[in-house]
């Protein structure tokens, strides 16, 4: 294994990391060490590894929330590691949707306003943005909370709002950082199924998780990190769950 070089990467990769290294302190141990990884369109890739292995750093780099110390990152044909702050912000609003463990919703905004925010930043016409928002709220089963504030919602409902917000601009890739880390067991299944349905609908997904069951059940490929290096990159063995989800007649079809 050479940090993903032999993994199931594709030539038409939607996300491509080439020899990416990230150090938070000069001279310190790298959080990511010469990681190369390709994610093809429509793939659902689970990134696993122990705490401190570099999972979240990898996701943050793909999201453009951070810059690599060296190496290159390309998403949808656009090299993002060299973009200015303004351009990388534009990239974030159009090419990626981010789902966080602790939701990161704005408590002062209603559910609808939270979902609409990236569309407003992207300059989407108001009417079209509202229509997309409404469609997402209905699809995710949270339309009755459209005028509620996030503080009144359960963890699962909040994560659905976060997913709706991540999807409002139809991003090329959906990045989920421990999306089930702050929800109860029953909701883990809901969120997992939702992500699976999205992937079944063609949404490219990179999922960081500690949960091997979630990775096995809802991702088609698992990348394992340890000490900032890719130690394995394998197709999911439990394809059954994925196949079952892909045929889910409800949200998959709607989304």
């Amino acid at each position, binding site marked *: 294994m050479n940090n993903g070089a032999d993994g199931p990467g594709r030539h038409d990769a939607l996300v491509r990391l080439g020899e990416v290294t990230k150090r938070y302190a000069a001279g310190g141990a790298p959080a990511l060490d010469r990681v190369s990884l390709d994610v093809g369109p429509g793939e659902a890739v689970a990134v696993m590894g122990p705490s401190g292995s570099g999972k979240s750093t990898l996701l943050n780099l793909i999201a453009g*929330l951070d810059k690599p110390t060296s190496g290159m990152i390309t998403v949808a044909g656009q090299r993002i590691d060299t973009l200015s702050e303004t351009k990388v*912000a*534009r990239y*974030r609003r159009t090419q990626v949707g981010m789902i966080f463990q602790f939701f*990161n919703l704005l408590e*002062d905004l209603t559910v609808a306003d939270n979902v609409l925010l990236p569309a407003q930043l992207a300059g989407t016409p108001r009417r079209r943005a509202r229509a997309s928002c409404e469609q997402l709220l209905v699809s995710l089963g949270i339309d009755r909370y459209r005028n509620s504030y996030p503080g009144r919602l359960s963890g699962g409902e909040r994560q659905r709002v976060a997913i709706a917000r991540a999807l409002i601009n139809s991003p090329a890739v959906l990045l989920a950082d421990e999306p089930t880390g702050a929800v109860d067991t029953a909701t883990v299944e809901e969120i997992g199924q939702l992500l699976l349905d999205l992937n079944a609908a063609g949404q490219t997904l990179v999922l960081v998780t500690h949960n091997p069951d979630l990775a096995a059940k809802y991702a088609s490929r698992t990348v394992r990190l340890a000490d900032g290096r890719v130690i394995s990159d394998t197709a999911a063995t439990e394809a059954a769950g994925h196949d079952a989800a892909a045929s889910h007649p409800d949200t998959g079809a709607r989304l």
Partner: protein
Amino acid sequence: MTAAPVIRAASAGAVRRVVQSAVVFGVLAASSAAALLGLALFATASEGFYASCAVTHCADLAVTINDSSWLGWNMTSGRWYRGPHEVDASEGFLAATGRAVGDSITLTVNGKPAIARIAGEVFVPSSAPVLFTSWQALGGAAAGLAASHYDIALKPGTTMGSYITALTRVLGPGYQAYTPAGPSIAAEIDTSFFRLLALLVAALAALGVLNSVLMATRERVHDLGVFKAVGMTPRPTLAMVVCWVAAPAIGAAAIALPAGLITQNFLVRDLAASVGMVLPASFVHVLGTADLALLVLAGLGIAAAGVLGPATWAATSKTTTALRAE
């Protein structure tokens, strides 16, 4: 009772800080007065001859004659006397006689009654009963009253030392001419202290504004991270932070500035009241329009400084750092 006549000279600036010219009944020789008038030309060419003397019936009452407002007396209430039948009184006088501004009093001068109305209360930093009035109100110098003490303001350019030397030479022995160096209003209640106090209170208010600005930003660091994570570019981020902070900053300033001034007002008045003084407004309202305008500008400057720091930080900080903030 006779006291040695006293001549005091001071430059115009210093003279305004003289506390009072307490003069007792006495006899001032006409020759001396003439000599004084001659020398006073050095002081009166442009500003007139400023003289004030006090005449008292008894050992406890000092009367200051002629308009001595130029000495720096401050009115606690009412106004400076104008007519020939008006007087101003110190708080000590009003307390001792049970009179108030607007009341009439009868002064008995050499056995002759002279009725006068109290036009105002003059701040005297002691409990001494003092009257301020004109010769006319007392029946004039012809009634046998004579000044025992003059306060003289020198014309700009006149050397005080040489003036006093010349005056002493002319007056001869038995008269004393000197530069006032003793207790003065400024020494006893220094308005610069009030100014300092006011500025301290204003500085505290400014710190309050700065604090509110910084707290407003700090509370929203995480939100900033979210805005940036979903694609807000640096310039709108900066603008948004300015808007976030400007409202509470302006609100805080609108409350803090008047609150600071009111607090200062109460504090100074209470301090004075604790030693039995009623301060004139000029001692309390030490901040003029220009000072207040400066304070407002300073407040805006502080708010701007408080805004720009966090705003610039917010616009340039790492999104991941902001997202981790609680």
